[in-house]
């Protein structure tokens, strides 16, 4: 019976041909390492976010009089399994960002942003940026103290442009305009909540969905990179490639199952970080909490902003880091790929990795003068990583030429 239905569909849609071409005859390098799984894990988390988000949106009310109660009473207490979907969505947001960061660091380590994969990296960067905005907008929705004050601080960051050394009026006007656009006014009220809600539930997810589609297409078009950094010729080296299905699908399927086991362990038994205690207090515009800090995935940027004494240069610095990340394929123009074969790059990658982690952890600490100095030090190291890339590439071009163009 089932076979007949598939036959009927196949006759009209040619699904078997598509499956064969895209899954079995599609060959990937045999030596892919464990970190290559993060892409598919991010995709799974995205699906979880969409499903749990659809359930939450049915009961959430984007009005400040009802937002807090709809999240904490209706969803958590009134609706059967509402708590489960909120837990999944809150933990999912953190896991999504965590997996995306791991995916990005993997990409940097194996130089997966180099020719012919520059577009994969650039679209991936746009996904990361949109994801950060989605996380920020979603953070306001429960309308707790952390949501409110976190958003107040974030929407005031563009206003630090007014601190510019020259053209104060011009920069100030730009900063204020951005800030007012984000909030829909000078105060964080119903208008802002409505805007953030609309962006978070319709616009940004649709954009993400489109971008993820393009990202996947580009990965297929350019081919998966390879930990060794060689481009494998699939025709002349058939022993170095394997069919995508079942070799990779089953391996990553098993990893995905274990990832979900860890994810649901957090969902059921350890939510105290993902639903922080302070956010169970309703937003109070008259009461500023003692410690305001963004969520962990923004703390690195926040620490860069905070540790630089001038607000303007702090703003410039963290935006510059984002921009340099986007320009990575062009900063690193060396013909040699993968940190496995690039000792200088390997050292700088470790410097970059440790500095980003240190900046994030410094962001959780109190803003003492020592911490500010440490923050500046690690900020300098992050910039050193980006600036070292052209130098390393220049040296490697020399070696490349000396070996007669052999990688």
């Amino acid at each position: 019976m089932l076979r007949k239905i598939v036959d009927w569909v196949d006759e009209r849609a040619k699904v078997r041909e598509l499956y064969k071409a895209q899954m079995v005859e599609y060959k990937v390098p045999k030596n892919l390492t464990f970190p290559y799984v993060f892409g598919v894990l991010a995709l799974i988390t995205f699906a979880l976010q969409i499903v749990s988000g659809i359930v939450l949106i049915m009961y959430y009310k984007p009005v400040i009089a009802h937002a807090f109660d709809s999240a904490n009473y209706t969803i958590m207490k009134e609706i059967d399994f509402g708590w489960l979907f909120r837990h999944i969505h809150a933990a999912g947001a953190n896991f999504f960002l965590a997996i995306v960061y791991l995916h990005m660091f993997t990409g940097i380590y194996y130089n997966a942003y180099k020719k012919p994969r520059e577009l994969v990296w650039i679209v991936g960067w746009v996904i990361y940026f949109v994801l950060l905005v989605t996380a920020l907008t979603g953070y306001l929705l429960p309308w707790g103290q952390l949501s409110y004050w976190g958003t107040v601080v974030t929407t005031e960051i563009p206003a630090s442009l007014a601190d510019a050394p020259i053209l104060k009026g011009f920069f100030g006007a730009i900063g204020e305009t951005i800030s007012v656009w984000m909030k829909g006014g000078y105060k964080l009220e119903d208008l802002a909540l409505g805007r953030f809600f609309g962006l978070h539930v319709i616009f940004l997810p649709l954009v993400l969905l489109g971008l993820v589609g393009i990202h996947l297409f580009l990965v297929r078009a350019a081919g998966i990179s390879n930990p060794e950094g060689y481009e494998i010729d699939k025709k002349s080296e058939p022993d170095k490639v394997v069919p995508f299905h079942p070799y990779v699908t089953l391996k990553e399927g098993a990893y995905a199952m274990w990832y979900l086991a860890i994810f649901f362990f957090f969902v059921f038994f350890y939510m105290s970080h993902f639903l922080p205690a302070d956010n169970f207090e309703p937003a109070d515009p008259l009461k500023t909490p003692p410690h305001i800090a963004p969520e962990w995935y923004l703390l690195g940027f926040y620490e860069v902003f905070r540790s630089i004494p001038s607000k303007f240069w702090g703003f410039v610095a963290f935006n510059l880091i984002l921009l340099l990340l986007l320009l990575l394929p062009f900063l690193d123009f060396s013909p040699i790929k993968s940190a496995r074969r690039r000792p200088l790059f390997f050292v700088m990658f470790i410097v970059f990795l440790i500095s980003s982690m240190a900046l994030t952890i410094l962001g959780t600490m109190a803003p003492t003068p020592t911490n500010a100095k440490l923050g500046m030090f690690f900020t300098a190291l992050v910039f050193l990583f980006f600036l070292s890339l052209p130098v390393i590439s220049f040296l490697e071009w020399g070696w490349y030429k000396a070996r007669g163009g052999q990688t």
Partner: protein
Amino acid sequence: MSAWGVVKTVFFTGLTLAFFFVIWIYNPFAHKETYELPEDVTKIIEDPKAALEGRNLFKQNCASCHSVRYDGMYLLSVETKPEWEKILKTMGRPIIEKKEGKVQVKGYYLPRDVYEAVALQDLENLKASFGKVPPDLSTIYLARGPGYLYQFILDPQKVLPGTSMPKLFFPEYDKEAPQKVAKIVAYLRSVSEPPPSEKAKRTVMGVVTVGYFVIMGVILWFYRKRLLEKMGLH
């Protein structure tokens, strides 16, 4: 894998796990206040029977200033209004409680704007005498935790100097005072935390879900191994 490969794998895995441990589970660098909680008090707070007594104590001692809307508990002065019952039944939603298999209405949940409109004058009066409206305590247990609440109710000025919350329990005159405070905290806990039977259900659900994924992963792994051996790809 070469020795260098093992070193790299251990280094990167260890660094990543250590980072997420600090960020998500225990951060030794971040400052966190802790409040002392005696062991017998913890026992009372976790006892569902104490929560029932705590509800009455709350009504006697706290409900003249604080509401607990998620439990259908409102300011006493508001509950004496003649139109109150009607407002609850037309604008509110029943809070359903399952007791020994029977479904019963425990009280009514009133949306915040409706409640604040009805109680406007009462809330203004409280603001006039205390400087601010005493907060609704529906989620305070989740926000502050048992240690803070116990110490704060026992001696507000010691925990939060300058607060307008009065001291209501005096251990020097009333031997039962610490137990009474603990019962009130137990009540606030029962409003926020799911009841023990529900909690047990969630634990079973969690164990089954996590177990399912672990086992599915193992099955897929061995299925793949056998399949690849047959195909000559391993």
